[in-house]
């Protein structure tokens, strides 16, 4: 296994924490603000930010497809609970949905970047690809939900 296999899950935890910390601060100091919910498009957005950062920091890293669902389930279950945005009763739903979403997005994004031509434009192409995946998930969520 190549190095940095666990960087992706580490980045996911950090970005989910940052998003939730911002929401805690907004909820505290702007109580009238309508906060975004942790739904599929928003989970996909956070996942893609983590994936892009992982791609820039460790483009050659292998994926551990056992660790990815395990840690993402823990991340999306534990952190909203810790921030007070989920109850014990619904944290497990967030955990399962978040784990499934992150694993699927990781597989899609990795498949795309592995086939991408390397070069000066490859980083911009990854960003554009991530944007495409996010828009596709928004359409997908609009259709099924």
């Amino acid at each position, binding site marked *: *296994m190549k*190095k940095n*296999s*666990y*960087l992706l*899950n*580490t980045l996911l*935890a*950090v970005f*989910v*924490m940052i998003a*939730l*910390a911002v929401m*805690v*601060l907004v*909820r*505290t*100091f702007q*109580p*009238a603000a*309508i906060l975004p*919910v942790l*739904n599929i498009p928003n989970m996909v957005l956070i996942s893609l930010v983590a994936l892009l950062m992982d791609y820039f920091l460790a483009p050659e890293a292998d994926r551990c497809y056992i*660790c990815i669902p395990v*840690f993402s389930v*823990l*991340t999306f279950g*534990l*952190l909203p609970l*810790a*921030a*007070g945005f989920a109850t014990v009763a619904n944290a497990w739903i967030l955990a399962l949905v978040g784990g499934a979403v992150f694993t699927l997005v990781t597989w899609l994004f990795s498949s795309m970047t592995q086939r991408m031509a390397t070069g000066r434009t490859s980083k911009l192409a990854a960003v554009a690809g991530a944007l495409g995946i996010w828009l596709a998930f928004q359409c997908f969520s609009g259709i099924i*939900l």
Partner: protein
Amino acid sequence: MNKKILLPVLTLLICALVLVGLNAGLSGVAASKAEAELTAKMQAILPGSETFTEETYTGDDANIRRVFAAENGYVIEVATNGYAGEITMLVGVDKDGKVTGLQVRDMEETFGLGGEALTDHEFLRQYLQTSGEAEVGVNVDAITGATVTSKAITRCVNSAVAYVTGADASSGATS
């Protein structure tokens, strides 16, 4: 065991601890700011009232969540399903059963369509001074492309009025 696996485990635990600390540390400030904001909002929705006392709602209307009694009427927190999720509103109703103000507090409606209910004052103004007879397509023009959202808001407003006028037979406001 691969020691590198400790990195995401420790990061996750540290992130959880940071969030627990942040949430616990700010909970007092959050509660007081939320209370002050709610009072200011209710004073704007029901002009002329200064103090609000929460009453227990024991009726059967599932849309009614909280009831606040004031000197000259009630502010009622109502919630119902819109197009994309639950819409929560505050509706001010005076003792004559007329709507004095309303505000959408929370929603997940589509940006640019149902989401306009937050800021479309022309739409919201149609409910002022109604007494439970608001109906989309009759005396309320729906937001363009957001009929479901408009009907949900109408249901909320009519539920609030019904509580005050007694049209909601299970309400205690007129007893």
